[in-house]
């Protein structure tokens, strides 16, 4: 599809509604205008229209060739905090792990996950959460059915308004659909048709359909989608599609990670071959797809600051050093920012605390996104077992979101990754000596809404707009032949 001459892209976030006008000419793109306004939670369309009007005004004023009727409009939304998903699988390391992967890759937020057979307490927990989606998986095709049938029966009796996506053993599909006839239920292909084989696309597509049907309802989004003739995308899905486009369209960005450290979560996306197949290395567990997203709900700089202090305590204490007062001051700061998420660091010490939190978020998110290599001593010598995804080939990491888009810290990633200490005979498969590129122009989710339709233009525009973070420039130069 040829690129449009102009594209107006808007992202409705939970705090801000941001937009940009992109101009495309001879395959090259540029940012022609930018605007933002606080999100209008009660009627999301109002904030959208404010931004759009401002974008059109700026474009008309500054771009002689601009005509609104030549511009396409695309938008994404993470309003309401995204799609809330409860994931159910059988074995935690197999179908449940794949269900979580599918939910996160579709742009969902996993509110809870359950293994094996649901108990009465589990059902009560699901009722209390009443998630947008219950993703029910389990069993290989032709494999276990009894867990799925029991879990479907438990969900059939649950007082929930969720849409249930069944993506388990296909042999049980008809029986599960029958049990869940009284609920909104979509049945798709199995997320794990064979042990270890991952197939998340059908489940992801189903999640996207539910997003359109549920998130768009109310808050003015439905009317907006109808008047524009185009549906919104979940923001994380827009980013996911952008990472895919970047990796496929720009050879120098083939192996890439995107790190988005926010107030509530840290999102990590990667596009890289998950298993190198080196001699002596055996892959165990699930084989992840080339393109994945993970979300860490306990890694955030504001709303999730307290959870971060707990999860990353060892890393944080090592960074703070020994003075006990420093830890106390840090704890006080954590309490403050968790309570007042809009708070901005006012002095050097607080800036340092923010930096420590951000490095901890990056370290934890990358470690969890990446796999582990464990040395095994066999009769024939050393061998290695890999679990999870190998990110070592990733040389470029894109930092986006408020903190990383503005970052000036020269050795941010190097310090974050150096803080990770694996167990003896283990190695985290995180990127080796990556260069951090900052999304200085805040274009990532905005271009993302163009990525599925215009992958080449979206990818090139993103690649052009990224800059290595100051101190990393030297490293990047040294690496050139």
């Amino acid at each position, binding site marked *: 599809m040829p690129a449009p001459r102009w594209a107006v892209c808007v992202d409705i976030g939970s705090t801000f509604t941001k937009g940009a006008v992109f101009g495309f000419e001879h395959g090259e793109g540029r940012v022609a205008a930018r605007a933002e306004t606080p999100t209008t939670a009660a009627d999301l369309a109002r904030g959208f229209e404010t931004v759009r009007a401002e974008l059109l005004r700026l474009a008309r004023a500054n771009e002689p060739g601009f005509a609104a009727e030549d511009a396409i409009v695309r938008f994404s939304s993470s309003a309401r905090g995204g799609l809330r998903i409860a994931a159910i699988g059988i074995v935690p390391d197999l*179908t449940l792990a794949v269900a979580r992967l599918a939910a996160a890759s579709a742009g969902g937020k996993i509110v809870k996950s359950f293994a094996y057979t649901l108990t009465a307490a589990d059902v009560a927990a699901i009722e209390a959460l009443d998630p947008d989606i219950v993703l029910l998986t*389990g069993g290989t095709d032709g494999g*276990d059915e009894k867990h799925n049938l029991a879990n479907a029966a438990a969900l059939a009796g649950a007082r929930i308004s969720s849409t249930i996506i069944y993506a388990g053993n296909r042999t049980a599909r008809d029986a599960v659909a029958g049990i869940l006839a009284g609920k909104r239920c979509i049945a798709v292909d199995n997320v794990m048709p064979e042990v270890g084989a991952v197939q998340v696309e059908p489940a992801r597509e189903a999640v996207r359909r539910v997003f359109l049907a549920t998130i768009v309802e109310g808050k003015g989004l439905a009317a907006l989608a109808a008047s524009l003739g185009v549906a919104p995308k979940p923001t994380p899905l827009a980013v996911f599609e952008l990472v895919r486009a970047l990796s496929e369209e720009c050879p120098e960005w083939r192996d890439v990670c995107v790190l988005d450290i926010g107030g509530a979560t840290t999102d990590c996306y990667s596009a890289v071959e998950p298993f190198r197949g080196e001699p002596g290395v*055996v892959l*165990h567990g699930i084989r992840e797809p080339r393109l994945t997203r993970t979300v860490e709900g306990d890694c955030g700089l504001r709303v999730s600051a307290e959870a971060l202090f707990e999860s990353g305590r060892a890393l944080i204490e090592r960074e703070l050093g020994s003075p006990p007062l420093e830890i106390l001051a840090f704890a006080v700061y954590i309490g403050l920012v968790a309570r007042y998420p809009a708070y901005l660091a006012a002095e050097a010490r607080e800036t340092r605390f923010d930096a420590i939190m951000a490095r901890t978020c990056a370290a934890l998110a990358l470690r969890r996104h990446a796999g582990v290599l464990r040395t*095994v001593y066999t009769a024939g010598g050393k*061998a290695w077992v890999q679990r999870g995804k190998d990110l070592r080939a990733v040389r470029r990491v894109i930092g986006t979101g408020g903190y990383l888009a503005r970052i000036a810290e020269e050795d941010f990633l190097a310090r974050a990754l150096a803080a990770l200490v694996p167990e003896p005979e283990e190695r985290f498969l995180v990127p080796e000596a990556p260069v951090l590129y900052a999304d200085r122009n805040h274009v990532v989710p905005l271009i993302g809404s163009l990525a599925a339709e215009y992958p080449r233009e979206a990818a090139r525009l993103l690649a052009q707009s990224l800059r290595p973070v100051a101190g990393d420039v030297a490293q990047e130069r040294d690496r050139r032949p």
Partner: protein
Amino acid sequence: MTAGPPYTIVLGVIGADCHSVGNKILDAFFTDAGFRVVNLGVMVSRDEFIDAAIESDARAILVSSLYGHGEIDCVGLRERCIERGLGSVLLYAGGNLVVGKRPFAEIEAKFKAMGFDRVFPPSVDLHAAAALLRADIEEAVHART
């Protein structure tokens, strides 16, 4: 080869053992013999066998061991199956299961005491083994119904 339902079996080489040739032969043979084989390859832990058997609703777990440490690796596998709800799964073991030259009857008795249903020496007629496996599975299926 053998007619009958395509029962699912889980196959793998246990522990820190990376002998893969026999594993591939077993995979090809049992697939050809009409079984649905979930092959986990080499260096497989006890829980990985059980995880795969749960998801695939396998009737049997076939554990290979070539490097002599099979005895240590296999201790507790039956107990772990019971703990994880797979008490009735058939457990087979085969290969060079122990270090040194010990009479096979002794090895077989030891592994049966550990909860294995069948134990095989390094050299075995696979056709006979497949027939035994199918008969054992069918007996277990009938016993359940």
